[in-house]
């Protein structure tokens, strides 16, 4: 009952004209980002943080959140029309979506994609509304050892699931933790790893690192690709017929459940979730051999999973301060810039803000359903802008974003350096997500550990004698151990 009341409070905040406007702006930018290859939601959110810093916190976070789930809507458009995923999570939609387009059924594919996203997003939000208060009550019992255990769990699961090599994932995370240590130590005021460089005393800003690792590296990777064919056919009849809707109902439901549950786990990124959902759908089908030839279930299920996970990912972010994806790590950074510390106290001290953002996600979902289908011709026309014209503009926007963080060209150089690093990391199959999550969580992890040790007078047993902290650490070790075992088994085969 209290959740419903809080949600109504949230709607009263979300439906204020100013917040509605920024929800719309974020939804449109998110869709554009999802449509255009080369600029994912994480980098786009990071680019807009300097601008969002000047907005009231509620409007800023509403806008950035809308970019995140808007990108999920938009990514499917290019997957279906061009066989090119606009966003990594839309890769699997290419398999059947593009085939449907080739059969003259691009309209129903796009329509079902939008409907599936809306239904899954709505159900995901319901889960968010009812699960969040439960987790908040649990999290209010946490002390520094539990926080440390939770953060280690989040990081270790992200490391275990991020890539094929555990060592590479651990290296990325360890490197991210060291990057987080650069700057002034908040407890003592001493400078760490700044080497006398004044610009480093403020540490590495997450916006600069994300824009470099994702946007710059993406443009460099795309520079290798040949030009793609623009879709020339007409798109007619956007609405799926009754058979399409009937065939899609169960896949949407299954995709929603899969997406919601997996979206709660740090490190399980949307591309993985959509593949799991697609695979499950194939196994449930009476005709699995037809998947990949233009089955509508192959579009409905992953698109549902995609959007459900954006809602469920907000649960650990808001209640525990634990981001599950790079985009949510950027959102966490934005929250901190606005002086908001995600965690249970956010629900207690900033009720209007939290529930306003949650309600705005539903409003945004409605906007995206209503706007996306009529705007498809616009997105298709935008796709006709040749990439050689688009990419340099993206690079300029990245420079503006990096400069806008602290009005410093030093940050622009750092962004470029991370861009080259990100490109090399992609080639050597080092995952970037553990690095980003570690950079964001590093300070909190360190504070939690130092406080735990201070409280226990140096005894690490405090992490094992407190059941919740111990539980988190055991699960963390188990996830790393399982990943190691799985890697070993794969090598043997």
């Amino acid at each position: 009952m209290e959740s419903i009341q809080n949600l109504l409070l949230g709607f009263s905040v979300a439906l204020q004209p100013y917040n509605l406007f920024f929800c719309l702006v974020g939804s449109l930018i998110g869709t554009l980002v999802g449509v255009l290859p080369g600029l994912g939601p994480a980098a786009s959110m990071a680019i807009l943080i300097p601008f969002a810093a000047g907005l009231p916190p509620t409007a800023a976070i509403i806008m950035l959140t809308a970019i995140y789930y808007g990108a999920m809507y938009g990514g499917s458009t290019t997957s279906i029309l061009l066989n090119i995923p606009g966003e990594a999570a839309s890769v699997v939609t290419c398999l059947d979506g593009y085939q449907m387009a080739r059969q003259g059924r691009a309209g129903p594919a796009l329509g079902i994609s939008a409907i599936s996203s809306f239904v899954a997003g709505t159900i995901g939000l319901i889960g968010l509304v009812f699960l969040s208060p439960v987790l908040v009550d649990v999290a209010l019992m946490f002390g520094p050892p539990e926080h440390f255990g939770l953060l280690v769990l989040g990081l270790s699961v992200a490391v275990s699931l991020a890539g094929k090599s555990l060592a590479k994932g651990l290296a990325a995370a360890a490197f991210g933790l060291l990057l987080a240590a650069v700057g002034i130590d908040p407890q003592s005021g001493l400078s760490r790893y700044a080497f006398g460089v004044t610009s480093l005393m403020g540490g590495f800003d997450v916006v600069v690192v994300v824009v470099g690792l994702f946007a710059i590296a993406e443009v460099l990777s795309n520079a290798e690709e040949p030009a793609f064919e623009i879709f020339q056919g007409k798109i007619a009849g956007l609405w799926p017929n009754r058979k399409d809707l009937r065939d899609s109902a169960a896949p949407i439901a299954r995709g929603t459940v899969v997406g919601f549950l997996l979206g709660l786990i740090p490190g399980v990124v949307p591309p993985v979730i959509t593949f799991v959902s697609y695979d499950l759908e194939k196994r449930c089908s009476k005709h699995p051999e037809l998947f990949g030839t233009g089955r509508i279930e192959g579009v409905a299920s992953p698109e549902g999973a995609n959007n459900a996970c954006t809602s469920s990912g907000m649960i650990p972010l808001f209640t525990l301060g634990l981001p599950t994806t790079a985009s949510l790590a950027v959102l966490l950074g934005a929250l901190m810039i606005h002086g908001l510390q995600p965690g249970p106290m956010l629900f207690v001290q900033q009720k209007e803000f939290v529930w306003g953002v949650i309600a705005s996600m539903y409003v945004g979902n409605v906007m995206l359903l209503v706007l996306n289908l009529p705007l498809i011709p616009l997105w298709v026309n935008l796709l006709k802008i040749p990439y050689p014209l688009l990419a340099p503009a993206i690079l300029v926007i990245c420079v503006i974003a990096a400069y806008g963080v602290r009005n410093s060209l030093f940050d622009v150089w750092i962004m470029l350096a991370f861009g080259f690093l990100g490109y090399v990391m992609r080639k050597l199959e080092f995952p970037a997500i553990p690095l980003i999550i570690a950079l964001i969580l590093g300070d909190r992890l360190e504070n939690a550990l130092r406080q735990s040790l201070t409280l226990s007078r140096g005894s690490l047993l405090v992490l094992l004698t407190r059941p919740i902290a111990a539980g988190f650490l055991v699960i963390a070790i188990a996830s790393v151990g399982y990943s190691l075992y799985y890697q070993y088994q794969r090598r043997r085969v």
Partner: protein
Amino acid sequence: MARANLLAGWVLVLLAALALGGALRLPIGRPGSPEPGFVPLIEAIVLGLTGLALIADARKTRGDKPVDWPAEEPKRMIFHLSLTMIGYILVMPVAGFTLSTFLFLVVAIRAWRRYSIPATAGYAALMTLVIQVTFSVALSMPLPSGLYGLP
């Protein structure tokens, strides 16, 4: 990939050694009273261990796939683009954002595809104007200025 992993492993070990050195120059404290160098020390050790793990793994691996480095032409494109970006940031504090962005767009677009010079310059000028109006005027975001206050 094994050779690349071996090299990456040694780079990580070197980074870890540098980080360890940096941490040891800070007060470490005691477990009961950890100071600024305590946690970076642990992080540096973890980084070093992962580097060693990668080295050991690379030495054991046989016949794995090569690194997917780009072919000659794309490699040249990436190199050109990288140099152009470096030049762009070097020129910016001298020429200001507007002129340096225009020049960067011209060079970068030409590197990617050989449109005619007037078409490239026209597009670059239009994009520079759009970016300037959008970010500087509409969004009030700061843009770098050059010598003598060049915008």
